[in-house]
């Protein structure tokens, strides 16, 4: 509410997904992580051929089918029912992760807790000692994909920065992130740190800097 009064509108979850989808070119093999990244597939126009990989053994994943065409044997990494595009293939887990770890995936889009200006990503735990440990495929994807983008809210619910000089949470992988799509901006991770490529209308650079825990650079 405050933000609206200040004259700019943060993107919604689907808005962030749609923004990232604009930048995925035809011909790429992409893996979309759980959460907002999964929504990106809905915003890639059907005529743009992008091959979606799902870690549980799908290459060429399609959208959720209508109820009468659902197949209980065909689920995505979030265990939602999905479809297979013409040309798609099923593989087992070691082959699925060979695609990832062998550097064959052009782009992986992950959710994040924190991203550092050196490209470090933290997205699986809030402390080294917590019981819940949900690594899943994130470490493999972060290291193995040719490029890693992160889609996340610019700050936490409490207003703490998620874009930082260094991550305070346990790392998923070091130096892996090349671009971040937040509800406020698109940022490139470069050798000099975060470079702002795009901001939501009405937000100025100083506003964005105030919500960021690392120095921002103009494009």
């Amino acid at each position, binding site marked *: 509410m405050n933000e609206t009064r200040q004259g700019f509108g943060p993107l919604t979850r689907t808005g962030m997904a749609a923004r990232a989808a604009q930048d995925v070119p035809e011909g790429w093999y992409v893996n979309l992580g759980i959460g907002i990244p999964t929504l990106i597939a809905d915003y890639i126009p059907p005529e743009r051929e992008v091959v979606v990989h799902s870690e549980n053994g799908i290459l060429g994943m399609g959208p959720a089918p209508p109820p009468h065409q659902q197949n209980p044997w065909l689920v995505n990494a979030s265990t939602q*029912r999905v479809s297979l595009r013409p040309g798609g293939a099923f593989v087992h887990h070691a082959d699925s992760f060979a695609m990832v770890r062998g550097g064959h995936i052009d782009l992986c889009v992950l959710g994040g807790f924190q991203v550092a200006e050196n490209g470090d990503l933290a997205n699986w735990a809030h402390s080294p000692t917590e019981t819940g440990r949900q690594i899943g495929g994130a470490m493999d994807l972060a290291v193995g994909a040719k490029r890693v983008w992160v889609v996340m809210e610019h700050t936490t619910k409490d207003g703490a920065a998620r874009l930082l000089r260094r991550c305070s949470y346990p790392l998923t992988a*070091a130096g892996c992130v090349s671009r971040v799509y937040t509800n406020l901006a698109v940022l490139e991770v470069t050798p000099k740190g975060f470079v702002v490529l795009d901001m939501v209308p009405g937000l100025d650079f100083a506003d964005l800097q105030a919500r960021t825990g690392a120095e921002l650079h103009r494009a």
Partner: protein
Amino acid sequence: MIDKFVRSMAEAMAGIPDGATVMMPGFGEVGAPNALLEGLIEQGATDLTLVINSAGRMRVPGKPPNAVARLIDQGRVRKVITSFVRANSVAGDWVRDGRLQAEVIPQGTLAERIRAAGAGIPAFFTPTGAGTLIAEGKEVREYQGRPCILEEALPGDVALIEAWMADRWGNLTYRETGQNFNPIMAMAAKLTIVQTHNAVDLGMLPANAIHTPGIYVNRVLHLPVGDPVLPR
């Protein structure tokens, strides 16, 4: 005549000892050998190490815990080797209380350690996990300019497998995303036990379509259990 079909669950589960490392495939209940897991619960082996992608679903009020959670809740699991432990789950409670060890590792490393065991590769280096908590205590070497950590093969004593079709030699096919960990766990265990939806005569499976050749399989139980039931 080679005939790997067994006629009963008791026959399928015979000889699984206490202390065994049991491999359980499945991703979101698809390709999960749930009938064999019920058989294992009945059979009684304890002090088990489970190799399983996810150590159990989140608690959902009004829904009974799944078979893995029940096995843990009976105190029969010493350790899980997995890529997911949810805080709000039976496994999470047992880990928090110190009654269950959890080795939580990247999913691709889990798959590759299993594959390596089946393929006779005792260990390998991978960049996955380098510079993170999971690298602690592991040998690090630089390859192609990147730090890599030494990961060891992960063999099993027993694998419980869910197939779509099987013949008496133990040749198997799977459906859609039901492959997941099944083919590699079948390779990696000393005793590979299969539940199959369909039993077919030898020669009926097209040779080009066989996912798991019978060399990896010891016992097959024909159980047409129906489609996987998703938690939501």
